[in-house]
């Protein structure tokens, strides 16, 4: 068939993707999975403990809040990079997924921070 040949006239290889791995690779993957599990568990434990004790410590709420957010983003990174395997995907795929999301998320937050002030007027004049 004409269309099944590429520009150089070679018959293309059948479409392939990484679907299998060997026993040794499996062992390595499983070790990574459990290591990540301990990391995620440790972060969650720190979060819950901090949530329960921060009022008894000499830390300001702002610092606690930022710590929560940083730990959460770290957790999200570990889940997406390792469990969802994004770290080992092709660069094109990584960019296609991460860039639009981050861009729109920041755009949304920007609008909330800058335009949200109008809620004050709504409270005053409409309710």
């Amino acid at each position: 068939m004409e269309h099944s040949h590429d520009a150089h006239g070679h018959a293309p290889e059948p479409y392939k993707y990484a679907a299998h791995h060997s026993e040794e690779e499996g062992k390595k993957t499983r070790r990574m999975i459990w290591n990540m599990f301990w990391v995620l568990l440790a972060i969650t434990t720190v979060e819950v403990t901090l949530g329960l004790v921060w009022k008894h410590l000499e830390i300001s709420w702002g610092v606690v809040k930022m710590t929560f957010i940083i730990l959460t983003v770290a957790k999200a990174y570990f889940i997406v990079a390792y469990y969802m395997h994004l770290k080992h995907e092709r660069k094109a795929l990584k960019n296609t997924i991460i860039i639009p999301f981050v861009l729109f998320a920041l755009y949304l937050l920007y609008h909330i921070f800058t335009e949200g002030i109008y809620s004050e007027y709504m409270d005053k004049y409409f309710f």
Partner: protein
Amino acid sequence: MSNTATMDSKTAWGGNNESPYGASYGKLMMWFFLISDALSFTGFLSAYGFYRHYYGSLWPSAENVFTHFPFMHGNHPLLYVALMTFILIMSSVTMVLAVEAGHRMDKKGVTIWLGWTLLGGAIFLGSQAWEWYHFIHGTELGAIELGRGTFALPNGTVEHTYGVIARWADDSKQVLLLPWREIAGDVTSPYIQLTGQALTEAVANGKEIYGANLTHNEYGHPLFGDFFFFITGFHGTHVFSGVVLNFIVFINVIMGTYQKRGHYEMVEKVGLYWHFVDLVWVFVFTFFYLV
């Protein structure tokens, strides 16, 4: 065993049999769906964060709302939701172990790990129903939703009381705590204590509230209830559809569908969705229960 599986040309996605992403059509579309879904949740949680900040101390603190633990009496703030988080993370671990077993064409391994994932999802859904029950049901003490009126703040300004939730200081119902809005969102901002005549008037003009629904919330601002029902409900719907998808794939694994096909990519695809559900919960946990 070779490192790659051959797919038929119907599943390959254009590019003269060479996908620029190195991923199949199905997996790519799952990723694209997850991006749009992630943006919905970003919208919900940003809106929540905005109003939580905006209403300051009128907003309930989650550690005062979610204090129950099954078969245990007393106050256990955050404990149950921490357990729910652990269960969901654990089910993410069993899911990725199922994917790993699939890469070795280990049918028994996939069946076992996917089974544990299903169990984790089911327990999580049950826990969420339980949390909803306690939030809707409320406390025996209840709270007073104040009627029309004004009160003076210590700094001299006058605030309206309409719709503000005043909570009892303790079981004796002798003191009402009246919060006011701090734009700074300081969770430790003070309350005005209502006693004696002011208390009697406040109760007479106000309304007793028990538990929460879409218009009233004994723990604080009603928007908290709306956000709680909407965001955890929307996430719970995702968990539910995840459990359904996992169950369908689980049946297919047992029937040997993927063994015959030569690869377990379908487990990877539902795995992506399942990890996403876990990922969203990580954010819901932080922004709803911790911050």
